[in-house]
């Protein structure tokens, strides 16, 4: 076994090549390596010329049936002509998930020494890839001095995936001279080929081109040491249709025949299909051991002598494979003792295997799975365990290797989910149940998830061995997630302790390989604590989550943790910190290519909340719209509630308190998904209702909201009640409430400002106008750094009056006075917008940059849409966002501002 593991490690090449993809798969160097061209290969100049010609156009298509010699043609061209920098990727069916596909493409660049800048990022989700990531990649390719030839071999394996094709099309269009795409495929890709053809930007090499001519056949046969007359070559070409695989098999058969010359001349496939007949012929002349090895290893994509030995039960695989390789039959070496069977022959061999050894295939799959597991190749092993129907083995290994988190997050999630979806209901034991629980929880079916979890817990293995610890750890990690969904911080904390305990029984290096387990546990725990109003604990836990290793497997939990930290900052009244955490969360999502719809939306909500405090209502609405584009509100009660609250605040700010009250009534009637109620979340609803009542001119109703639910779970609630009391004329009561505020160290500027203003208003009503004035001054000073306009807008006429009476004060706080002098809210002048926007314009996204650039070229919206291959509506959305970020109202103004800011 020692020898085996050693050779397998070699199989993955040097350490730089064994880099693990986000998928968790060790990247077999073979997928990224230009295949070796055998000595018997016949170079055909006419095709090489076509490929060289193709490298001058954006797209080359090598299209032909299986066995037409497509791959070797391109590989030989690369060796012969060295067309500059080349990245090679042999596509696999799982690449149909765009996130996985682009991960491998980026990997291919790296593998071939094309160093990508870090800011391009990498996809974190298998199903989708963010457009901005592709835009960054295309822009970078476009900006380089030299071009890259990207070869995608066996592209037919993802031929049905429109999203992959769209992404390729986009990158190809925007990479300009920087990218040349060569697609090798049995079927036509879903690219708009007619457009490329019409523009003369496509070189097409098709089945007819690939077919051997008589002279080429003669050269091929000659290369095998079998001279053939011109006439013989013509006949052979005719009979095989010039099909490379047919010719190759025919030559192999002739080599073994008594009289090769007459075999070739008289070769008559007769009435049989070429490959079927020939393979039978060729197979027959090999010794029985070789035939047996070929049949048994046909279940594998790639084989290794030790693995082949495991399948045959003999120990002669190495010489057999070497001999087959020398004879140029069936197998090709892919480096480090690994071999690949020609896919066409493997397919036919599998059919023969089924006929000669019915029922053997599952047995072989099981043996292969066990061997691959021992070799540490879990991802390669799982499909074989599944094909063997050995779900206990698959699940047990999956749990034992601490892979459970990969069902919940990261690029492998969808593939693993699909794999285990086939799991037989009969598979029993804690491991299969844990896998089922994880799948249900990932699909947000908590009841079924918990039922499986419970069954797994009833059958937990005893002992302190590594296996038992892995089961306990997986169980506890899922428990934390279930507790979070149930809204129970106590349960989450208990489960998190169980996680820590199980971790102690496991070696550190095994845990280090699964950073997603820690990130998921901490984020789920922190979320449960947040829901329960344990803000300090939540902040500490979520900060730990953010400190976990950055990478595709942790991108989503980190994004969630940052978003929730932003919310906590906001609740404590720290707009600056809230904003920076929210922007961090968004950056994490963008860098990892998380599509907007997969983000939590919470970061956007926090930005909207901060914008409302600043009275930047246009920005607030924009952020709210973006938050609404996510799908989380349905599952995350905090997001659902905040979204409704912020909408109501926006409505109030626009003077429509009636609509705000209606919306809040609806919210109060909704049942939130969590089993346990959250003290502060319901208080937030109450506060928003009270604020809407105040805006509606009914302070009594506002006070009543608080009287119906005595006590406060967050400092913000305290201030809100005091505010309502002042408005209702209960100033002394308000002052007593404010005495309960936490110390200054624990409250941020927003709370500070509201507190001071409430107090000022209270003492003013009580007749102490000089104390009121000094409190107001303090409030203004505290508000200025963050431009917190909203409290002053809602404070009533006396603030305006005071500022009118004190011109010096008004001048000092020009950031506020412009806003105050205008009524209603929407009539703000452009100067003020600019005054607000100038300190720090929000950075434009790459896409917005594209749009802005075209705007500056005086292109119309429709023209921009056509040029960028976007819909007109999408362009309009980008324009809106650009205007907002640049505080502009028209095109000309946006372009002028962008020039001033050096963005153009």
């Amino acid at each position, binding site marked *: 076994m020692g020898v085996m593991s050693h050779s397998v490690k070699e199989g993955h090449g040097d350490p730089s090549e064994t880099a693990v993809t986000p998928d968790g798969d060790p990247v077999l160097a073979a997928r990224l390596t230009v295949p070796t061209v055998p000595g018997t290969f016949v170079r055909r100049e006419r095709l090489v010329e076509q490929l060289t010609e193709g490298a001058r156009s954006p797209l080359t298509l090598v299209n032909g*049936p*299986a*066995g037409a010699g497509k791959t070797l043609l391109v590989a030989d061209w690369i060796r012969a002509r060295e067309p500059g920098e080349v990245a090679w990727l042999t596509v696999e069916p799982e690449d149909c998930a765009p996130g996985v596909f682009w991960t491998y493409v980026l990997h291919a660049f790296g593998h071939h020494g094309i160093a990508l800048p870090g800011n391009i990022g990498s996809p974190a989700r298998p199903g989708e890839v963010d457009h901005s990531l592709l835009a960054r990649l295309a822009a970078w390719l476009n900006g380089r001095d030299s071009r890259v030839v990207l070869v995608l071999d066996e592209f037919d394996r993802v031929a*049905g995936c429109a999203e992959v094709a769209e992404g390729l099309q986009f990158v190809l269009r925007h990479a300009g001279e920087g990218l040349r795409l060569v697609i090798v495929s*049995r*079927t036509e890709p879903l690219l708009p080929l007619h457009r490329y053809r019409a523009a003369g930007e496509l070189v097409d090499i098709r089945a007819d081109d690939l077919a051997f001519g008589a002279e080429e056949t003669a050269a091929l046969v000659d290369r095998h040491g079998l001279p053939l007359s011109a006439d013989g070559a013509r006949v052979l070409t005719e009979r095989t249709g010039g*099909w490379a*695989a047919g010719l190759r098999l025919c030559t192999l058969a002739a080599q073994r025949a008594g009289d090769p010359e007459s075999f070739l001349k008289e070769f008559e*496939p*007769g*009435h*049989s*299909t*070429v*490959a*079927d*007949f020939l393979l*039978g012929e060729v197979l027959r002349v090999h010794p029985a051991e070789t035939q047996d090895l070929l049949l048994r290893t046909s279940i594998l994509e790639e084989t290794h002598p030790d693995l082949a030995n495991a399948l045959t039960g003999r120990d002669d695989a190495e010489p057999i494979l070497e001999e087959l390789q020398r004879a140029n039959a069936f197998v090709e070496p892919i480096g480090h003792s690994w071999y690949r069977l020609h*896919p*066409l022959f493997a*397919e*036919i061999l599998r*059919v*023969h295997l*089924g*006929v000669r050894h019915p029922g053997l295939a599952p047995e072989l799959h099981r043996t292969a799975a066990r061997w691959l597991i021992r070799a540490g190749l879990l991802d390669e092993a799982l499909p074989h365990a599944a094909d063997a129907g050995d779900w206990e083995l698959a699940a047990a290994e999956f749990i034992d290797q601490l892979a459970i988190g990969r069902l919940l997050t990261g690029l492998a999630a969808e593939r693993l989910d699909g794999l285990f979806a086939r799991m037989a209901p009969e598979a029993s034991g804690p491991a299969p149940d844990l896998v089922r629980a994880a799948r249900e929880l990932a699909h947000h079916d908590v009841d079924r998830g918990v039922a499986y979890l419970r069954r797994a817990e009833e059958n937990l293995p005893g002992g302190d061995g590594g296996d038992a610890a892995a089961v306990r750890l997986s169980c506890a990690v899922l428990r934390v997630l279930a507790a979070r969904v149930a809204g129970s911080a106590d349960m989450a904390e208990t489960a998190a302790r169980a996680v820590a305990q199980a971790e102690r029984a496991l070696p550190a290096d095994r845990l280090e390989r699964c950073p997603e387990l820690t990130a998921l546990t901490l984020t789920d725990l922190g979320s449960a604590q947040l829901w329960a109003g344990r803000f300090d604990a939540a902040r500490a836990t979520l900060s730990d989550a953010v400190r976990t290793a950055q990478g595709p497997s942790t991108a989503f939990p980190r994004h969630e943790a940052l978003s929730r930290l932003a919310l906590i900052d906001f609740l404590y009244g720290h707009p600056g910190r809230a904003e920076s955490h929210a922007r961090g969360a968004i950056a994490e999502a963008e860098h990892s290519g998380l599509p907007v719809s997969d983000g939590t939306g919470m970061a956007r909500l926090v930005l909207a909340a901060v914008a409302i405090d600043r009275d930047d209502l246009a920005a607030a609405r924009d952020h709210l719209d973006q938050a609404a584009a996510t799908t989380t509100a349905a599952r995350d009660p905090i997001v659902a509630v905040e979204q409704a609250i912020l909408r109501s605040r926006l409505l109030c700010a626009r003077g429509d308190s009636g609509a705000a009250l209606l919306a809040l009534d609806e919210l109060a009637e909704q049942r939130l998904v969590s089993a346990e109620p959250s003290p502060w979340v319901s208080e937030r609803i109450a506060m928003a209702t009270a604020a809407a009542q105040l805006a509606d001119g009914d302070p009594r109703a506002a006070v009543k909201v608080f009287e119906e639910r005595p006590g406060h779970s967050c400092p913000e609630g305290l201030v809100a009640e005091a505010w309502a009391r002042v408005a209702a004329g209960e100033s002394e009561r308000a002052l007593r409430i404010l005495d309960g505020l936490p110390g200054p160290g624990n409250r941020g500027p927003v709370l500070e400002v509201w507190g001071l203003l409430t107090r000022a208003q209270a003492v003013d009503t009580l007749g102490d106008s000089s104390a009121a004035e000094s409190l107001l001054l303090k409030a203004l000073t505290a508000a200025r750094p963050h431009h917190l306009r909203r409290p002053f807008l809602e404070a009533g006429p006396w603030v305006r009056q005071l500022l009118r009476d004190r011109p010096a004060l008004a001048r000092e706080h020009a950031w506020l006075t412009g806003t105050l002098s205008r009524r209603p809210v929407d009539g703000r002048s452009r100067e003020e917008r600019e005054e607000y926007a100038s300190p720090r314009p929000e950075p434009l996204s790459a896409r917005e940059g594209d749009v802005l650039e075209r705007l500056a070229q005086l292109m119309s919206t429709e023209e921009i849409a056509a040029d960028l291959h976007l819909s007109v509506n999408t362009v309009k959305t980008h324009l809106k966002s650009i205007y907002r970020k640049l505080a502009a109202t028209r095109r000309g103004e946006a372009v002028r501002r962008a020039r001033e800011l050096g963005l153009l």
Partner: protein
Amino acid sequence: MRYEIRVDGQMSDELTTAFPELDSFVVPRQTVLYGQVKDDSHLYGLLVRFQSLGLRILEFRRLPEPE
């Protein structure tokens, strides 16, 4: 949906086992496979299977449903 697929050359008995859901017979230089095709994805799956075995399809047609 019933389909008939004509393939270039005579397929061996072994090779026809790759299409257990179809019946087949051979005619000079051709193999005819026929049978029930469940839906579109079955149809496309069949096409891929023919292609991956290096079989050339000469004709692919839908048969009228028996009365």
